[in-house]
């Protein structure tokens, strides 16, 4: 006959503690896996803008990044950016160059598309619309959140690629064409995947979509 042994009070406590520890470990793993936790997602519909025609909504995994464009600073570059947005060319395009706490770069429409990613050529692709002239004459303070068009080592090679800086970059003035500034959601961009070893990211994060507010 098997004798039933009752668990002592301390054994019950240990058992309860182990279950609690298990729950804690599980939930902690889930929390740290969710990189977007604690990142505020801004809904542009709930915000009023002074110049709604110049507002762009960039949607990525962790939420919306709201950008105000400056056509008065760089008219041609903003016109090009708006055109590509309206054609939905930026949708599903990779953030192929990401430097932690420094910048994120996207917009390679040729080799950076989700369904046609080419790691060997990413960063060199074109839009097919040709290059435009650099607009670097105007004074512009490249503060955190500034958006600019990327180029090759030469001026007047801007096309579709753009970058957003995550820290002030005073040396960018006169070097790169500014097109706008992030006004909400810069924290979202800090969660874009980066590599410790290289500026170019293997299995990068993608832009879900970019659209004009109006």
């Amino acid at each position, binding site marked *: 006959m098997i004798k039933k042994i009752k668990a002592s009070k301390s054994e019950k406590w240990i058992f309860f503690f182990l279950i609690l520890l298990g729950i804690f470990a599980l939930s902690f793993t889930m929390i740290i896996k969710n990189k977007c936790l604690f990142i505020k997602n801004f809904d542009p519909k709930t915000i009023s803008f002074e110049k709604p025609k110049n507002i762009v909504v960039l949607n990525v995994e962790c939420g919306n990044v709201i950008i105000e464009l400056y056509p008065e600073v760089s008219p041609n570059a903003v016109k090009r950016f708006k055109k590509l947005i309206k054609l939905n060319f930026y949708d599903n395009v990779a953030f192929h160059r990401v*430097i932690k706490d*420094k910048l994120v770069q996207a917009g390679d429409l040729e080799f950076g598309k989700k369904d046609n990613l080419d790691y060997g050529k990413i960063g060199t692709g074109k839009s097919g619309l040709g290059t435009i002239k650099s607009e670097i004459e105007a004074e512009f303070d490249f503060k955190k959140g500034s958006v600019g068009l990327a180029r090759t080592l030469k001026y007047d090679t801007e096309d579709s690629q753009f970058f957003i800086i995550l820290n002030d970059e005073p*040396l960018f003035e006169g*070097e790169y064409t500014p097109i706008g500034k992030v006004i909400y959601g810069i924290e979202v961009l800090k969660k874009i995947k980066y*590599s*410790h*070893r*290289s*500026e170019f990211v293997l299995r990068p994060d993608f832009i879900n979509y970019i659209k004009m507010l109006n």
Partner: protein
Amino acid sequence: MKVFRLVLLSFILIIPSKANTIYNLIKIPNLEIYELKTLNNLKYFYAEKPFRLGVQRNISCTNSDKQTYDEKFKIISKNLNKYSKKFLKKINLKYIVMCENLSISGINTAGIPDHLMKTLILDLKFDERYFERVIHHELFHIINDGFKDLFNEDEWKKFNDKSFKYAECSTCTKKLGLNTYRNTKGFFSEYSKTIPSEDMAEVFSHLISNKYKDTNDNILNKKIKFIKDKLHKIDNTFKF
């Protein structure tokens, strides 16, 4: 050996990639910002550590101390403030790098102009007697590199006596003296006699730093007129 390779590989892999904006812009390592807010928009950098550059890493320069940087910055900026923002943009000069013991392939030099990278590297420990003037001398090379067609060397050579011949290159001769001649005879200094572009740079630097007096030296007067005319073609508001 394999273990060594593995250790080395893992060491390389764990070194984080650090982005350096200055390096990305002008491809010179180990620089820090000295001054960005200047009247003519020139950006000044200083070497924090020694650096090497060039395809064969044959250009080298070392870092200096704070006192030297501070003293020499005042002199350099005073001289470069003679050039307007508009003019500097036209000639494509934007960045000034300050360091010590600048050399190319072991030969000491006052400065290294890089028209493409919009950069002028200056040796802060260059001979005090000529330091201010060579700033303009090196700046002229930036101008010359950007407007090669304008500063036609064949046209320039014709100003000299027919018997005179320049050297094959600026370091192919021992005539490197920078002392201004009392009796010019077509040349401001010994170094002027090396190659046409150095001769032009010497004329320009003497003009801009007011280190010449009107003379009856016909050759030199022709050279001066040539430099002045060409500079006005680049920027008609330019003043010596």
